[in-house]
């Protein structure tokens, strides 16, 4: 499956919608402090950013529709599928770290990643699991950062 993305037009529309929405919710999301400390309003910097994003988005839309200046990116599903799947696996990895801990989550996730990448030799699986244990103890004992242990008793 292949399709072409008019990146100027699409990013222009998406960013315009995003900045418009963020500007719309600004009064609720960024409240002005009850008393005046002499400091500038907390809305200034985000406000400027959103307005610049909106202006740039409009410029992109005009470039695409009026001046026909476009950068077309071909989205090839066969090419993108591995990247999307890997990102999805990494999101699940985060979920698993929170639920069952770093070591078990790493063992499960990277077994899946290695299988997906076509690795068949057992050594690489053993190496990866050993690495997960090593990194866990490196952070816990050397860097004093307690990575989530999850259901394991340490």
């Amino acid at each position, binding site marked *: 499956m292949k399709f072409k*993305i008019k*990146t*100027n037009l699409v*990013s222009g529309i*998406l*960013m315009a919608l995003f900045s418009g929405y*963020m500007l719309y919710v600004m009064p609720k*999301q*960024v*409240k002005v*402090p009850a008393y005046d*400390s*002499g*400091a*500038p309003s*907390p809305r200034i*910097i*985000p406000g400027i*950013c*959103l307005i*610049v*994003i909106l202006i*740039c*988005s409009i410029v*992109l839309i005009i470039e695409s529709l009026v001046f026909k200046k476009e*950068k077309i*990116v071909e*989205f090839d599903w066969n*090419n*993108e599928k*591995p*990247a*999307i799947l*890997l*990102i999805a696996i*990494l*999101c699940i*990895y*985060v979920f698993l*770290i*929170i639920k069952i801990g*770093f070591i078990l989550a*790493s063992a499960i996730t*990277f077994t899946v*990643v290695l299988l*997906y*990448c*076509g*690795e068949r030799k057992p050594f*690489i699986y053993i190496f*990866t699991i050993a*690495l997960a244990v090593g*990194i*866990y103890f490196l*952070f816990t004992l050397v*860097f004093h*950062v*307690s*990575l*989530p242990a999850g259901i394991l008793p340490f």
Partner: protein
Amino acid sequence: MDFTMITQAAAQTFTLYNIALIFGGLLIGMVIGCIPGLSVTLGIILMLPLTYNMEDAASAIILMLAVYVGGMYGGSISAITLNTPGTNSAIATTFDGYPLARKGKVKKALDVSLFASTFGGLFSALLLLLCAQLITKAVSKFTSVEYFALGIMGISLIAGVSGESLPKALISGMLGLLMACIGKDSVTGVSRYAFGSNVLRYGINILPAMIALIALMQVVDKLREFRLSGGKIKDANKIDSDGMTGKEAKSILPACFKSSAIASILGAMPGVGGGVAQFMCYNEVRRSSKHPEEFGKGCMEGIAAAESSNNAVVGSAMIPLLTLGIPGDGVTALLLGAFMLHGITPGPTMFTKQGVMAYTIIIGCLVANIFLYPIGKALTRAVAKVIQVRYTYLACAIIMFCFAGAFAASGHVKELILTAAILILSYVLTILDIDNTPLLLGMILEPIMEKYFVSASMAYDRDYSIFVRRPISLVILIITVVMVISMMRVNRRVNALNAEQEAAMAAEHEQMGSAEDAVRAVETAKADADASFEDSIADAVFEKEHVTAKPDVKVNKDQDKP
């Protein structure tokens, strides 16, 4: 120069601990730099969690600079042995490095690269040492108004030179600023765009953002490539033992000097990185060479020009970072992030308030460049073998380390959630052809910019026109606009020229390869013909012997009969 501070800094740099860090950093940089698809930025990001608990922030920065220096040289190892640059800054190294390697002179090419890298690195590190104090004195009268203007300059220049579209780069930069605004405002205590979420309430830490935007995206890209190619690894040229001679080293000195000087000037300009500098230096050295026709065919001057330029950028890119607080490229943007994570704000005040630390970092950079030569000499052969290691071994290790490092930012699982979310955002931006370097820079610069903006506003009673009324600030803003416009034009031209040059070189390499293949084919055919001739003679002899032997056999057989 302040010699008292330099002496103190030298004493602090030459501790066993710092020297060990420099050795380790150089080695890690060389390994990461030589793997195509993994950049120096990834190496620096991987070092960030390691440096979290370091007592001396200067040691942390020295470690990262050593990775930067090692990575710049490491990029040339795969450029020479594989014809695939390990980093973007080593593209021009393939022009002459690979042809020389194809001639069987891999060690010579690597030696030239190491010598030129060391020369370029030392040249710019010395320049950094000499210039830092001068620039700092020149900008010592800057107030928060000017610093805010400098922040705008930094983000605009990076936006101006990254990607092909200015609106897209600006969107990216502004998204970065906006993302850094999320959470509690440090001045008023007001919550900004947290949407009632616990994950967003305390803001987005730079570390998970850096990990997701740069490191994880690179690993995902490389794993995708691995999966699509079935994990095939190109055959690397074997390293011989015939290195560079003293005479040859002398002959490439002018090229090294010229290239280092040009690259140091270019590298000190915010927005120009090693990627741009290498081509300009290569072209200039070729133009002024006595044998320009040899370039692209395995000329040592060509390798020297490319390699001394990319290492010269390391020191010179630190000039605007240390003296003005403006990062010159993506790598220095990351270093700025590292400075901030360690509670240091680079700029003129750093030289007055934390002068010893500033000089310790500069001397550390100098020492890393000095040590690059012996370490490169001793370990290049071993490091080159890493290219042949299956990527899946490294990828899993890097991903685990990245998530563990992201978690270390605050020790809370929200960092992991943010890392995953920013990874998805980064992928969407890539699909939309929006470069994420300005986004990262925006995130890094926002706290500094907002700090100066608030100080300036409060000092001038919220008179925002002060940013254009103060002459120095106005001049900085005008220079920003002029530089963005001119650099966009220059960059377009340079990119077009580079693309042409790369295509021409690729065609030449292919031609060279096919010519060599043809020669090899002829040799093989000749060898085959010889072999078949020999075979036919052997067959004839065999047949003759066989025929003559037949009666013997028969006789023997007969003899064997009872």
